[in-house]
């Protein structure tokens, strides 16, 4: 079964590459780039070898922590990275989870990133070569176990999160725990930087390292340090802890696979809605000058339902907070930036929301036909989609702006910040609207794992993401210039920033939606093919 599954995986990849050869370039490029990093790692292990054992341990423990947390969290934040075989597709074969597990495990390890991290940690374990040979053996075992915990843990995280976001009750729990994790990262960052960066490096990091070395995150790479220090028991129980964690994760993954095989996620879970949310939300009650035509209101109503219930949209809405939060609680204190830099957080949130919509149309891949056969509705579709985003995004960025203003106490900067934030939101949403019609790529279909991507869709997404990111980065300075001038040159620019920001935001949103709508009308006969 292992060989069968591996063959299946590589056949799928090969077919994809045959159809779109430029994806092979990206794949090879990624592999080559990873390989060029190996000499750097080699140099690092040479340098590590000359460090005292305790320093060495602290460094590798911190590195392992970053890698493990990255492996577990990044696939949840950046959707579309996960390309392992989806266990749900084996449901009709009548195979047991136990039969599938070895093959799925092997295919999870035989990916470029997994192999890369395995090599990195094995190379780093050479840092113990100047100590007794037994320590080197312990280091190799610890390294292998650590990478295994990384890779299998990532599978478990994705499986559990997929399950959680598809269930309303556990979704709340999931978001609460994400919120808790953010607070913990914030507290940790604050504790680390309370006394400045250098003091933090000298005192907090070794203490944190010592604690992490007792957890399944850092224990594996800390084991050789314990061995060298003469703490044989310490080394052994750390390796046992890692092995036990791996067994536990494998068991959890097997359970997750078994669950997936018998619980297809594409079902709605028997949810019912008595009121017709489309008719009620597409209200006629708005004042006539503001009221959009019926198709626009219908699309807006449908998208508002999606934002409230569809896992793919919800995951995205939560994910946009990652960049501003990381900037605010980690980058700012580490670089000891002036509090005024805090104003970048709401702007970053706005651009994350805007950029996040760059493949919006593809999320409706399976049902796009309904909009297309109804008439020439490109503009209605795009305006409706953007309006639905604006309904929650405008309050969200304004709240973030107010929060930062309260934190800095610089209320005088409010007009400029509000202008810059709303301007950024509108303009980036406009760019994304254009990108989602001009460069759509296959996205997770309704009901599919919001974290998954079809094997090989990575290439198309890279192109679209690159173009939309560059366009966003080029436009951002234009929108924020008056605000930056208000902070650096003269406060009077603030009101100017408010006027230009709101004007550019509205123009960007409206213009982007209209232009994207016209393009949509021109591309109708090709859109379905581009997203499915």
């Amino acid at each position, binding site marked *: 079964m292992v060989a069968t599954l591996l063959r299946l995986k590589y056949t799928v990849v090969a077919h994809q590459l045959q159809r779109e050869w430029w994806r092979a370039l990206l794949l090879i490029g990624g592999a080559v780039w990873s390989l060029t990093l190996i000499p750097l790692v080699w140099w690092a292990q040479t340098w590590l070898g000359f460090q005292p054992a305790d320093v060495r341990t602290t460094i590798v423990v911190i590195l392992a922590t970053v890698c493990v947390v990255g492996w577990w969290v990044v696939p949840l934040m950046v959707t579309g990275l996960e390309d392992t075989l989806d266990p749900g597709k084996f449901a009709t074969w009548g195979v047991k989870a136990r039969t599938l597990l070895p093959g799925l495990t092997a295919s999870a390890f035989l990916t470029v990133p997994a192999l890369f991290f395995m090599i990195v940690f094995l190379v780093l374990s050479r840092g113990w070569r100047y100590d007794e040979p037994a320590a080197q053996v312990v280091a190799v075992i610890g390294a292998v176990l650590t990478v295994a915990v990384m890779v299998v843990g990532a599978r478990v995280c994705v499986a559990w999160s997929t399950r959680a976001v598809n269930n309303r009750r556990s979704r709340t729990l999931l978001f609460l725990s994400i919120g808790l994790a953010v607070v913990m990262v914030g507290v940790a960052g604050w504790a680390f930087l309370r006394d400045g960066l250098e003091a933090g490096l000298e005192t907090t990091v070794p203490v944190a390292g010592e604690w992490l070395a007792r957890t399944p995150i850092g224990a594996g790479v800390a084991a050789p340090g314990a061995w060298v220090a003469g703490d044989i028991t310490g080394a052994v129980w750390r390796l046992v802890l890692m092995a036990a964690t791996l067994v536990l994760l494998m068991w959890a993954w097997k359970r997750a696979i078994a669950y997936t095989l018998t619980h297809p996620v594409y079902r*709605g879970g028997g949810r019912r809605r008595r009121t017709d949310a489309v*008719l009620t939300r*597409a209200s006629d009650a708005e004042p006539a000058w503001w009221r959009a035509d019926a198709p626009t209101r*219908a699309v807006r109503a449908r998208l508002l*339902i999606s934002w409230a219930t569809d896992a793919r949209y919800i995951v995205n809405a939560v994910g946009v907070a990652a960049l501003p939060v990381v900037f605010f609680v980690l980058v700012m204190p580490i670089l000891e930036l002036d509090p005024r830099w805090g104003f970048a957080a709401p702007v970053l949130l706005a651009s994350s929301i805007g950029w996040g919509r760059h493949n919006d149309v593809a999320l409706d891949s*399976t*049902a796009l036909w309904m909009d297309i*056969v109804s*008439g020439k509705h490109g503009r209605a579709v795009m305006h409706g989609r953007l309006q639905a985003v604006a309904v929650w995004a405008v309050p969200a960025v304004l709240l973030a702006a107010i929060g930062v203003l309260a934190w800095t106490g610089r209320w005088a900067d409010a007009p400029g910040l509000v202008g810059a934030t709303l301007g950024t939101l509108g303009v980036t949403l406009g760019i994304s609207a254009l990108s989602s019609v001009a460069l759509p790529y296959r996205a997770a279909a309704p009901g599919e794992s919001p974290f998954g991507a079809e094997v090989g869709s990575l290439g198309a997404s890279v192109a679209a993401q690159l173009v939309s990111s560059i366009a966003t980065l080029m436009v951002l300075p234009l929108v924020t210039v008056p605000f930056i001038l208000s902070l650096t040159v003269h406060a009077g620019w603030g009101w100017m920033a408010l006027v230009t920001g709101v004007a550019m935001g509205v123009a960007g949103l409206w213009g982007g939606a209209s232009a994207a709508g016209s393009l949509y009308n021109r591309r109708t006969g090709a859109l379905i093919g581009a997203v499915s």
Partner: protein
Amino acid sequence: MSTPTPALELRGLRKRFGATEAVAGIDLTIPTHSFYGVVGPNGAGKTTTLSMATGLLTPDSGQALVHGIDLWAEPARAKPLVGVLPDGLHTFDRLTGSELISYAGLMRGMAKETVRERRDDLLAALDLDSAGSTLVTDFSAGMTKKIALACALVHAPRVLVLDEPFEAVDPVSAGAIRRILQAFVASGGTVIMSSHVMALVERLCDHVAVVGGGRILAAGTLDDVRAGQDLEDRFVGLVGDTSDQRDLSWLRHSSD
């Protein structure tokens, strides 16, 4: 007397996907007030043709005229005349049955009150009352077909283009759909439907076109196409039977 404008006229439609020529030049005239069956083996190009005729897939060349209006040149005028039920069962399946019909109605630019009335009528006529508050994703295949048909009907189109409307539908529901479609044709509408079930086509349609290899092999009134034969025999005669009729002896369970 001049010939009336046909309900749907396909002129030289072509579509190529890479090396495969899915539709190799299709000309077809579907008279108004007809019940037109399009039959053909799997992969004959039926769905591709119907997609090009309804605005879902850009043809490489050729035209599709709905009551004389070029659909690809004037979609805003042509599309309101057409109701579409495409192949496959995918719709906005996170909406409930009622919401989906309302959505289709609003997308057709109808007033909210009209949408509400017709939604309730359609749910009742297609025996979907209980499904109105259930998410479409939890529907059975047959129910999904019926709700998609309701969406195609909500704006009272003049032409209905239906890809396999009876597939996966139980006999009771099929009866309901049949009655709706026959009444639609009787009142002056035009139905174009693709199907694999010859008996159904013979029973419902007055015209039929046989498609094979991306071309029209025969088209006209049912009697013309049948040419005195059973439609199924005529169909197999036109498209050719399976060449290798191998006996799967290993499939037999021996009783001893």
